[in-house]
């Protein structure tokens, strides 16, 4: 039986943790890979230009030289591009900034309160945006 994801009946508060729901991207038929690639820094846009969407690469650990297979674009984005100073600025739109912050922290759940502390915007504004009837960029309460 197909599992149907149901919205929580509890009303989210500023302490409710949110995260990116990758399933939402699949369900809404948006091109996640294209979107991710658009967020890469110029250097990675160039070096990963020939890498196919979703292709795994061999990532070499910095201290032990141990190899792990990871999604090439996603890994470059989270480990490098999302950590650049201009990845999230004061001018970045609220929903975009929240999305980028989740990318930068490896999609670890964060509440509106946590996001407020990082972005310098009111927690209630963030909560009202994320907890509304419309789902933006797959940002949903963490399951």
């Amino acid at each position, binding site marked *: 039986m197909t599992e149907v994801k149901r919205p929580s009946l509890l009303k989210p508060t500023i302490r409710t943790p949110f995260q990116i729901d990758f399933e939402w991207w699949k369900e809404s038929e948006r091109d996640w890979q294209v979107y991710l690639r658009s967020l890469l820094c110029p250097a990675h846009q160039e070096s*990963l230009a*020939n890498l196919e969407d979703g292709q795994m690469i*061999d*990532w*070499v650990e910095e*201290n*032990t*030289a141990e*190899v792990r297979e990871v999604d090439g674009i996603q890994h*470059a984005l989270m480990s490098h591009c999302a950590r650049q100073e201009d990845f999230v600025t004061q001018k970045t739109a609220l929903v975009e900034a929240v999305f980028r912050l989740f990318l930068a922290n490896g999609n670890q759940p964060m509440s509106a309160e946590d996001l407020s502390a990082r972005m310098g915007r009111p927690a209630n504004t963030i909560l009202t945006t994320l907890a509304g009837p419309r789902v933006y960029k797959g940002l949903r309460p963490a399951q």
Partner: protein
Amino acid sequence: MASVSLNLPTNYWQILHVTPTDIEFLQTYLFEHETPLTPRELAAVLVVERLRAEQESAAKKQDLTKAYLPKEKYAVGDLIRFPALKSSGRVTAMRAGLNPELGAFDVLTVAMHDGAQKMFAAALENHKLNDPPAEDESASELDPEAVARDFGADLEKKLDSAFAGDKSLVCIAGRWFPRALLLDVNAGHLNLAEAVLDMAGGEPFSTETLMKDLELPADVNPKLAEFSLNYALQEDPRFDEVGPAGKVLWCLERLEPEGVRTVPVPLQYVEITYDRAVLTDQMVALEAQVDDELGQASAPPADEVTISLLYPHWRAGTLPISARVKRLFPTAYESDRVCFTLVDAKTGRKIPAWVVRKHGYVYGLADWYKSQELMPGALIRVRRGGQPGEVRIEALTHRSVRDWVRTVIVGADGGLVFALLKQQISAELNDRMALAVPDPAAVDAAREQAAKSRVSFEDLTRNLMRELTKLSPQGHVHAQELYAGINILRRVPPAPLMALLATHPEYTHVGDLHYRLDEAA
């Protein structure tokens, strides 16, 4: 030998067992160096040797395996050691790596020795492991100085106990040496040493001083000559080593004060059996507080302690070495008796004294007590002096005043009577232990008579309680007052006395360690 990476278990030095190989190595070391060494010095030698042996063993193992460097190329079947992971494994597969940012490299699949399967990069030019860090010898388990600092005390104990059963080694004043290498110190040398010490009239001499008068062979290691003489003197019952730890001083046993060679009569204790479990917390606290050398209560050592003088110590000219004051007085590795100097904190006068370790007292204060006009119960402050090994002593004296004090009077029948009489008091007193004894010789006779008549501990306690009760309007006596009183006639530590008070139906606890005698019970 090239330095190799050494990964010792973190508890290597804690669980180290001194093996026959270690003993043999240290014996050889002592033979080669012909210098007696302390367990601390031997432990340091052993640590260096163990590290060398572990390095050698690690180097042999490394010959079979290749150290992992990401830039190297490997083949299936190769054994690789991974210093960064403190592990090793065998290459089971190899393929080309894929990472547009790194260029061409290989990916090895390695079956690790712990059963895990991992992948590693190879033929990779740029990686920080290609410049392996120098071996971290500052790691505490690899640094001989750090090992000595952190685990030295444990190693010393292990070496001492391993050497104790070895007949080929001898230990003098905390130094070990092979018996076979000792110089021949003959009877003539020893007779000469006796004459020198005899002339000194009981003053202890160092081995070095004695050697000046003995004609030992001049062409040998002076330390060996000194050690050999120390050993010969130790084996001869005429001589007694009386120096504090780290210092060897010799004295003629027959010239030591009587109160050092044998326990003074007032301090002699005939053991009383009792059940320690019946003591309350309050009793144990009092036991620690009264500084009795026979007490078992633990107390943290302190740099300054004020002692209430108990009658037997006042009479014998001694001070108790209780748990609290133990660290203040000098100790020794082996000597039972240690000669040292006390300093009067007020006058700077030096008082020759002895620590009698086995029986827990300091001897040599009779004249000082007399000069300070102290009585039993007087408060004496003992503290560490400014110089290493110096102990300062101070009677809390004040201008002499007349005041009411419990006074011990010996009756015509030899029994003790207590009366409140006015006495000259020259020092601060512990009110519960203060006792004036105008005629100590009569008390000695009463003590002797009590010992001869074999009055039981229980009867003696009852008699004392009865006498002391007469001085109390409430009709009760504090355990500490009874402790001070009973010790006039018999040496009794506080614990057996309090155990009797706690268990015998004749004694009723009326609170705060005060007891009433109910002879009808």
